């Protein structure tokens, strides 16, 4: 996501990234970002929560108008309700392909240790 934002911004489009992995977003370096501690698959909140969607979009728009410096990140104070954290319902049923068996896991570990992401 961050890499795409950089390309768009370089093409003279103003971008704001909503991220739930700010550690990675900072590492990549994006023009403007908003960080939120919501799970994968529900980054704008629970299904049907229009007020939350409006609030988050509002913050993205605020940042688009305000931020004066490349790399600005704003953190949102929202937290995922504890009873919903226990549901762990953001994990897909199908196992992640690279974790599906030992050979694939080893292949991924080798990539992580020695791989070239631009190959």
């Amino acid at each position: 996501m961050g890499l795409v934002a950089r390309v768009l911004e370089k093409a003279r489009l103003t971008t704001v990234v909503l991220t739930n992995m700010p550690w990675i977003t900072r590492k990549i370096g994006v023009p403007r970002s908003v960080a939120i501690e919501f799970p994968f698959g529900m980054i704008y909140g629970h299904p049907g929560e229009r007020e939350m969607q409006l609030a988050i979009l509002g913050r993205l728009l605020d940042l688009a108008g305000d931020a004066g410096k490349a790399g600005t990140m704003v953190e949102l104070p929202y937290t995922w309700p504890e009873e919903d954290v226990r549901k762990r319902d953001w994990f897909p049923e199908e196992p992640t392909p690279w974790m599906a068996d030992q050979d694939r896991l080893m292949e991924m570990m080798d990539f992580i240790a020695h791989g070239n992401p631009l190959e």
Partner: protein
Amino acid sequence: MSVNSFKFMSRTLAESLQRWPYVDTSGEEIPWKPLAKPVADCKVALVSSGGFYRAVDEPFNLDRERSEPLWGDPSFRELPRSITQEEIRAAHLHYESSHAMRDFNCMFPLGALEELLAQGRIGSISETHLSFMGYQPKPRVLMQETAPRMAERLRGLGVDLVLLSSG
């Protein structure tokens, strides 16, 4: 930094992501294009890495990822402003998409964007929005081919401001 980037994942994934060979952007300045007009006059588009596509279009290729787990489909899809819940699909093996299949606005908030337009917070909404599949261990094609094409498409649509979000 109080937002925990690794809260919603397995320990294996969290440890992997912290050692991951990310594309090194440190030698290049972060690009910067400030808005040329107030947000209230801007045309806005959404871009999601959630792997969304229209039911009538080709899905992102998950079968190839299943057989080659270091590959992720690097293409993108277009979604019309008027897309309905019945017409939208998601293809992505790294998050649970059933929530978005009940209300895609929890990842792709076009409905809320229409409300913000009605309130006068933005100037207009792009007739087309974009999505790609964000699992990209080797993002060369995404960066060098797909993203420039997405930029060209968005500029052709007259978009001023792009709101991106992850899967």
